[in-house]
């Protein structure tokens, strides 16, 4: 098959970029694969694409910021999408042209706005696969309304968790669209796993509020008080950096908690630790959890929607604690810090259990979905079996649609009122 990925910006850093590069690389072993990056802001991507994966960009921000269409807001890319401000009539045009000319059997969109482009503009013979790396419940109502209309024209919609797939099936009426979970995959580690002896807790991610690194630091204060030779290392950069630095100072933790800066790849850093930590309020999947587990670390994570609960088996290969509960988080860390044998046992279980996120099983699933969708398109059919939900499902999803419309209208009215007050 010829497969094209459509991605926001392949030159940045983030879970969607990593997982797209991983999936593209694995598919490239048997298929012709390209990654189309809508935006480009630098010469080389942070991650090196597989040598057989072609990478091209549609709008080069280094040169085209002065383009007259660049300053005009996008019309196809939905205005309620998170990244609408980075899109323009120029991206509308380039994406449309790209799709019209595309020489692929299947195109995979990697975020809601791009899935909309795909749904509306892909040629008839091309299978349309929309990927959702966020969750339906977290989308604003106006975006849900826009997606509800457009997503009917997809062949396949993949989410990263079963919980989110269930949510789409329940709350959106998408007849003929196959909705299925396709978890992110994490490449097989190259280095030997951690031997669980290091007195180091490792956390990684963009330093943004939703990741709650402040909660990990607060929780780690309890560990440092009891075990002063343990360290917490936080990898990543972002807007929270200075606030976290100040928190470390206020808590007097500068001998124990370290902001390490960004590290790519993380594998060599995970294996220096013996416990992983993640405290997000919201985590659609949780790539870093799987990465840490594959490197032999049991992970203490908040049980936020939806990823961690589908990755960690509480008490067996890691720990799940309530969202926002620093005391519970600290207690879970301490259980593992105190007990070398528990850490070792859970670390070994983590390696075994996280194997289901290896490229092998995940890519096999992706390949099956793609083949079915391409086969159906070439036979003039769509991806999914007939809608099995029946009347009840229709009523439920219509109820959600009506509520989203009302909420979207209310919030847009509110915005208008607020603007008026300025």
């Amino acid at each position, binding site marked *: 098959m010829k497969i094209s990925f459509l991605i926001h910006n392949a030159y940045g850093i983030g879970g969607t970029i990593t997982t797209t590069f991983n999936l593209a690389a694995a598919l490239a072993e048997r298929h012709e694969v390209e990654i189309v990056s809508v935006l480009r802001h630098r010469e*080389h991507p942070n991650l*090196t694409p597989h040598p057989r994966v072609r990478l091209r960009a549609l709008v080069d921000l280094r040169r085209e910021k002065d383009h007259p269409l660049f300053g005009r807001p996008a019309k196809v890319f939905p205005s309620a999408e998170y990244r609408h401000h980075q899109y323009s009539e120029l991206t509308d045009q380039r994406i449309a042209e790209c799709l019209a000319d595309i020489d692929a059997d299947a195109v995979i969109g990697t975020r809601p706005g791009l899935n909309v482009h795909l749904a509306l503009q892909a040629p008839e013979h091309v299978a349309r696969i929309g990927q959702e790396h966020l969750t339906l419940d977290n989308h604003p109502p106006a975006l849900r309304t826009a997606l509800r209309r457009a997503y009917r024209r997809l062949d396949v919609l993949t989410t990263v968790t079963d919980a989110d797939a269930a949510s789409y099936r329940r709350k959106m009426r998408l007849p003929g669209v196959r909705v299925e979970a396709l978890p992110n995959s994490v490449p097989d580690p*190259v*280095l030997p796993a*951690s031997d669980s002896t*290091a*007195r*180091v807790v490792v956390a990684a991610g963009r330093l943004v509020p939703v990741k709650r690194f402040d909660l990990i630091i607060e929780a780690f204060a309890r560990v440092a008080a009891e075990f*002063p030779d343990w360290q917490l290392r936080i990898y990543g950069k972002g807007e929270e950096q200075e606030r976290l*630095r100040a928190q470390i*100072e206020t808590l007097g933790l*500068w*001998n124990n908690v*370290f*902001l*390490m*800066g960004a590290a790519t*790849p993380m*594998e*060599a850093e995970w*294996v*220096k630790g013996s416990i992983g930590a993640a405290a997000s309020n919201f985590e659609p999947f949780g790539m870093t959890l799987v990465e840490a587990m594959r490197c032999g670390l049991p992970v203490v994570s908040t049980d936020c929607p939806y990823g961690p609960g589908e990755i960690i088996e509480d008490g067996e290969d890691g720990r799940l604690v309530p969202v926002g509960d620093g005391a519970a988080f600290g207690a879970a860390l301490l259980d593992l810090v105190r007990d070398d044998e528990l850490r070792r046992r859970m670390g070994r279980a983590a390696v075994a259990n996280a194997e289901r996120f290896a490229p092998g099983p995940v890519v096999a699933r992706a390949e099956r979905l793609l083949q079915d969708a391409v086969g159906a398109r070439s036979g003039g059919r769509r991806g999914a079996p007939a809608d099995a939900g029946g009347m009840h499902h229709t009523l439920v999803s219509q109820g959600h649609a009506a509520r989203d419309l009302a909420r979207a209208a209310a919030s847009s009215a509110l915005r208008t009122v607020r603007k008026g007050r300025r």
Partner: protein
Amino acid sequence: MSTVRTHCSIDADGRITFRLRPPAATEPRLVLALRPRKGRPEETTHTLGLAPHGDDGEFRTVLEPEPRLAEGRWDVYLLAGPDDAGRERLRPGLRDVRALVDGGRRDRPSPVAVRVPYTTKDGFLAIRAWLRTAHAEAGPVTVADGGTTVRARLHGAPLSDGAEAVLRLRGGKDTLLGVPVRPAEDGCFSFTVVHADLVGDGGRVWDVFLRPAAGAPLTRVGRLLDDVADRKDVFVYPRVTEGGSAVRPYYTVDNDLAVEVTALG
């Protein structure tokens, strides 16, 4: 741009194994070159023969703990052919340096030799090396109003009763400030610097040393014995005010301990 990624791993003795797949190589070699000071020619290099390992095109070489590397930053190059022309600077793959993480726990004989493979700011593989007759490894630093207490451990020399910490004013002036040390077990000791003794007119920097015995030469206090090659922005201590100045201990670009005094207002 080079696409050859070089994996390396280091053991607790400083032995480094390099693994890479040179594209087309006959008798490939790895060259380590000590980065010269700006404007100076390159003088010191080590050349290591690369040998095939397995049958999938991978080559390996091992840099043994001896000979010791001179202190500084060593860049890593590939010579793909038998002649010395056309060497290519290598980019890092995975750096497995986990054996270094708790390196401060072991006692080091003299000279204290340290190697840390790292990635340069511009994305190349390099090795940070330190080579010192003796070394005082800084541990926890307690910064409080009025004073800073440093716990440290001396490696490569015995700590005698006459030992003292010495702060030396940077900038050529021979201004030294002696501070008594409190010895503990295994060469460990601590000392407290009173901030009021450091402040003066305007900004200044004090470099921190240990004089292990009366009349002995100064040994630098720093933090070298773990996996962190560039510590300055990672081990960050708070700033406290003293009179009209701000006082902050910090690590220099060479991972040595210093105290910075800046005038406020």
